[in-house]
C-alpha cells in the first residue's frame, strides 16, 4: 500500500542517513551469502569437513598464505580460507539459535512479568536478576561445563544465559507501554490478558527487540567464539572461528596466519551486526543495552 511504501521510504531515508549501517547490512548480506554458498565459494570444501568428506594433507601443513591458500594452511594441511568460509555457517547458526531461544523464553517471561506483574512477575524478575548477576560469558562457562563441550551445547549454554536479557528488556518496555492508554482501552473493550500481551503490547516492543537482536548477534558470536577459544565450544575439527584461533594459538608466533584470519572473520561479522544494529537503533529510535 501507499502508506507502506511511505514508511518504507522513511526507514530507508533514515538508514541512508547513516552510511555505516548500510555497510553493516552489506557485510551481513555478504556473510549470509557466504554461509549459504560456502561449498561453491570455498576452494577446498572438504577441508572444512563438508559432506563428511575427510581431506587432510599432512604433507602440506603450515603453508604460508599463497595464491592457492590465501589464508595459509593449518597443521593438517587444510585450507584455512575454506575453513573460515565454512565457519560463517557455525557462527550465524549459533547466533540465530541462541537468540531465537533467548527471545522465545525471554519475551514471554518479560511480557508476563511486566504486564501480569504481582507475585509471579516479581518472582520471574528475581530469577532474571539472578541470571543477570553474573557476566554472561562467565555464566555460560559454568553452564557449559556440565553439558560437555560441543557446539550444540555451547549454543544451549549461551541461550540459557541469554534469555534474561530479553526478559529484562521486554519487561522494561512493557512497563512503559503498559501505561499507554491503548492498552487500557483494549482492556476496557474486554480483551483478554493474552490478547493484550501478544496483540497489543508485543508489536510495540518489537522495535527494541529487533535492534537488540541485531546487536546481540554480534555479541553472541563473540561469546560463542570465546567458548570455542576456551575449548568449551565447538570441538575440532569443526571449523568454528573461536576454536580455530584456539588451535592456532599454539603455533604462534611462527604460524601467525592460523589465528589471525579466523579472528578477522569474527571481527568483520561482529562489526557487521553492530553497524546494522546501530543503524536500526537510529531508525527505530530506541535505546537498548
Amino acid at each position: 500500500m501507499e502508506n507502506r511504501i511511505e514508511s518504507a521510504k522513511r526507514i530507508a531515508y533514515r538508514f541512508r542517513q547513516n552510511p555505516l549501517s548500510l555497510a553493516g547490512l552489506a557485510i551481513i548480506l555478504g556473510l549470509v551469502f557466504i554461509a549459504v554458498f560456502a561449498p561453491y565459494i570455498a576452494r577446498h570444501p572438504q577441508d572444512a569437513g563438508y559432506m563428511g568428506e575427510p581431506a587432510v594433507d599432512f604433507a602440506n601443513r603450515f603453508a604460508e598464505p599463497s595464491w592457492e591458500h590465501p589464508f595459509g594452511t593449518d597443521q593438517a594441511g587444510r585450507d584455512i580460507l575454506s575453513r573460515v568460509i565454512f565457519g560463517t555457517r557455525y557462527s550465524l547458526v549459533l547466533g540465530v539459535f541462541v537468540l531465537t531461544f533467548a527471545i522465545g523464553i525471554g519475551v514471554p517471561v518479560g511480557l508476563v512479568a511486566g504486564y501480569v506483574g504481582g507475585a509471579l512477575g516479581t518472582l520471574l524478575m528475581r530469577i532474571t536478576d539472578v541470571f543477570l548477576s553474573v557476566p554472561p560469558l562467565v555464566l555460560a562457562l559454568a553452564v557449559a561445563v556440565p553439558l560437555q563441550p560441543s557446539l550444540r551445547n555451547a549454543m544451549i549454554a549461551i541461550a540459557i544465559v541469554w534469555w534474561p536479557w530479553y526478559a529484562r528488556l521486554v519487561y522494561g518496555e512493557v512497563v512503559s507501554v503498559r501505561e499507554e492508554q491503548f492498552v487500557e482501552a483494549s482492556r476496557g473493550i474486554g480483551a483478554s490478558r493474552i490478547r493484550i500481551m501478544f496483540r497489543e503490547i508485543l508489536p510495540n516492543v518489537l522495535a527494541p527487540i529487533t535492534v537488540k537482536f541485531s546487536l546481540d548477534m554480534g555479541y553472541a558470536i563473540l561469546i560463542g567464539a570465546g567458548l570455542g577459544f576456551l575449548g568449551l565450544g565447538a570441538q575440532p575439527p569443526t571449523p568454528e572461528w573461536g576454536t580455530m584461533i584456539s588451535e592456532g594459538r599454539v603455533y604462534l608466533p611462527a604460524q601467525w596466519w592460523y589465528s589471525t584470519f579466523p579472528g578477522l572473520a569474527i571481527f568483520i561479522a561482529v562489526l557487521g551486526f553492530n553497524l546494522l544494529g546501530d543503524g536500526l537503533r537510529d531508525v527505530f529510535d530506541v535505546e537498548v543495552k
Partner: protein
Amino acid sequence: AGEEPEEGIDDDDNGNGTGNGNGNGNGNGEDDDSSLVYATTIAPSTIDPMGVSDNFENIYAVNVYDSLMMYSDDTPPELVDGLVVEWDVADDDQTYEFTLRDDATFHNGDPVTADDVVYSITRMMEMQMGMSWMWAGTLSPDGVSAVDETTVEIETDRTFAPFIFTLPYHPIVNEAEVEANDEDWLQDNDAGSGPYQLVEHVRNERLVLERNDDWWGEWPDGGDPFDEVVMEIVPEEGTINGMMGSQEADITDEWLSLQTYQEIESMDHASVSDEVTFSPLYVFMHNQREPLDDVNVRKAISYAVDYETIVDDILEGNAERLQGPLPDAMWGHNSDVTLYDRDLDQAQAYLDESPYDGEDIELTYTYVSGLTVTENIGLLMQTNLAELGITLELEGAPWTRITDMVTDPESTSDMHAIYLSFSYVDPDTFLYPAWHSDSHGSWESASWYHNEQVDQLLDDARTEIDQDARIEMYEEVQELMTEDAPALFVVNEAELYGINNRVGGYVDNGLVGYSKAFWRLYNQG
C-alpha cells in the same frame, strides 16, 4: 651461554616471560650459570611427597626426597640403591629387608633413620593419595617395621613381583619435621634428604630449589652442578618458546607442541631431546561391541591406517612404530610379533572375511580434546578408513569425561585414542592394567579386551619372582595379543624436551620424575 637476552627492556625484566629465576630474591641471582630453569606449562596440585602424582610433581619429589631405591639413567632403566646400601628378599617372596646407609641426613640436619622410613610408608598408606595405589593390596603399615636404626623390614601382603621396581617412587620424609608442622607445611617447605631442597614456592608461578651440599650422593663430574634450580610455571607455550630463545629457560617440559620444539631445535644454543621411551599411543577398539568384536574387522582397521604419515608427518618423525602392546624400551619386549603396516589389500581381505561391508560400518573415534596429535590421527584415520568405506566420526572429549565414559562398556566409545603411561619399570605396568579383565572399567582398559589365556599369564607373571621366567610369560602375552589386535598399536612417541646446550649430563630414559634428575646435570658452558 648466559649472554644477555637480546631484547631486555630493563635489567630486571628480561624481555618475555614470567620473569625468571635469575633475579630472584635468593641473593645468588647474579651468577646466571649456576641456575637451571626448568620451564613448564603444568602447575603442581600438591608438592606433598605423599601426594605427588604427575610428572612435574614427581620431578620435584625425586629431586628433593630420597627413596629406598632409585633408577639409573640407562635405557631400559636399572634399579640402583638409594637410601639403601643392601636389600634382600626372603624365600617366602614377601619379606624384604633393607639396610639403610648411615650418612644420609635430612635438609634440616636430622639423620635418616629406619623410623623415618616406617613413618613414610605408613603415611603414604594412610593418606591414600598420590602414588599410593601402587602398593594397594601389597603394602600395609602393619607389615613395615624398623629392626634397628638402619634396618627396615617390609612384609608384603601378597607376592608381587614388581614390588621392588615400585620403590623408587616412595619418597622418605623426616618424621619429626612433618609431625611438628601442620598439613599445609609441606606445600611450602620440604622434609626430604634429596640432592635439592626447596627454598621458595610461589604457587602457580615457581618452585625454587637449592643444591643440598650435604647430600650423600655423587654430583656429576663433567662440570659444575647447578646450585639453584627454578621450576618455572609458564602456562603459555609461546612464552616458554620465548624463554628458551632468550635463554631464560634451560629445559622445557614435554607438553609443548611440535612447532615449538622445532623452533627450539632451530636455535643455536638449544636442542630438543627426542628419545623414544615409554609413551605408547594406542587406539583402543571396543572388543565387546559390534562390529569391533569381530577380530577380522579389527585387523582390517589395523591394516588400513597410514602409520607412515603418522610417524613422518603428524609426529614429524619423533616416534617409532609400536610393535605389539609393549614399548621396546621395556625389558621383556617381544620383537617377533606382527608389526601392522598399511596394506589395503590385506585390510580388504580381512574385512571380506567378516560379515560386514565397509559401508555398513560407522564408528566413533574419541580423543582427548586439546591433544592435537590424536585429533590429527583421527583426521587421518577418517581418510584412511574411508577407503574401506568405513565412516569414522571424530569426537573430542575432555579427559575427565573420557575416564567417565570408559567405566561402562555401554558408554565406551568405539575407539579411544589413549596414551598409556607406566609407573614402574616392569612389563606389568603396561600389560596388567590395560589388558587383564580384572582391570576393566578404567581408562587404561578402554578396549574391554578379554582373553582367558592372557589373564592367566598376567596373573602368573605377578607372582613369579624369577626374571627370566617372567620374560617368557610376557613374550607369550604379546604374541597372543598381537593376534587378537584389540587395539591399534599405533606409535611409541618420543618425548620431546627443549634443552639448552649448556646443560650437560642430560639423558632421557623416559622415567617419570627421574628423567629430570637435576643432580645428574651440570653446566658445560
